[in-house]
């Protein structure tokens, strides 16, 4: 399926989920599909850590529903993250693995072992149980309510098999914020939604 069609479909199903994107194309795609800069955190400055960041947030605030995107380039750098995710088994976290079989942010350079990597099998091997795989927008649209169902036990892992960005998509705008601005926009939103105090720390 086309990368952007996939992201637009997911964006249509979003209600109040908090979103964390990864280094690579997922930040560009989510920004293009939503233009959201308060309930989405673009963790561009990290390879392979978006779902760990999302796990920390999900652990801290169990009432939030959190979607975390990660490319398979980032996944290849730290697949053991799934061991930690499985151990935590957070029911409010959905890990979307965007599999385009390339390092999308670096001119679509090929991944190692790209034809053989079976991400769902890797997840099963680490004990994950709620695993979904999608290769078409039609299947994604049909089954999305099932993967996003509330009150399901345990962490959810979703493999999205997409085509790499084409030359035009590679030029999609990056979220136009610096790091600290993103931190405050996102954090202030969470403070207002949760009534918690992130930045007003006092000794």
């Amino acid at each position, binding site marked *: 399926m086309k990368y952007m069609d996939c992201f637009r479909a997911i964006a249509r199903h979003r209600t109040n989920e908090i979103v964390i994107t990864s280094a690579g194309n997922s930040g560009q795609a989510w920004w293009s599909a939503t233009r959201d800069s308060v309930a989405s*955190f673009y963790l561009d400055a990290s390879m392979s*850590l978006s779902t*760990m960041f999302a796990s*920390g947030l999900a652990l801290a605030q169990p009432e939030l529903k959190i979607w975390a995107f990660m490319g398979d380039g980032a996944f290849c750098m730290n697949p053991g993250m799934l061991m930690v995710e499985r151990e935590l088994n957070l029911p409010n976290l959905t890990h979307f693995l965007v599999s385009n079989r390339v390092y999308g942010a670096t001119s679509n350079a090929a991944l190692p072992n790209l034809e053989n990597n079976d991400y769902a099998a890797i997840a099963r091997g680490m004990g994950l149980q709620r695993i979904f795989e999608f290769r078409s927008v039609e299947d994604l649209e049909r089954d999305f309510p099932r993967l996003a169902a509330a009150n399901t036990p345990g962490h959810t892992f979703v493999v999205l098999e997409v085509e790499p960005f084409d030359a035009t998509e590679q030029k999609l705008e990056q979220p136009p914020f610096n790091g600290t601005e993103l931190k405050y926009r996102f954090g202030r939103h969470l403070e207002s939604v949760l009534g918690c105090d992130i930045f007003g720390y006092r000794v």
Partner: protein
Amino acid sequence: MPDKTPTIAAQIADELSSCGVKLVASLPDNWLMDVIETIRGDQRFVHVPVNREESAIGLCSGAYMGAMGSAALMGASGFMTVVYALTKINYTYEIPLFLLATLRGAGGDHHKHHISNGLYLLPVLDAISMPYQIIDDPDDIGLISRCYHHTRTFSRPMVVLFTRDLLRGRHQ
């Protein structure tokens, strides 16, 4: 008379709890095993064993954005693998992070494979302008709170480095 003095590990755990730390993400170092086991069995904490040190950086940074206090606990060698994550996440976004690590390769460490940590750990910290506090004496364990609070004021990471003498007792 049994000795009622809290162990070093218990004092460290008490100090972490006193400044609001709830999540502790760790990878082991032999010197830290008493601390890790103490925290793992302490209901005041959520202890998460992680697959690599960078994962601890991600977890604790996310917890901060959820208003949960946290600490990342690791050996010196593990710390040397996280410079990318620290500079990218915690410096770029100015997200506070509190780390506890071992001062490997210093006097009293008899392991030759930690020579590189002895040579380069502190210079690496200086190179990335990351503040650190060495704790060598049980009377200084209270500095943990001071350093934790500094990360929140400073909006960047800071590391407390434990010596062998503190964690394992004085050695030749």
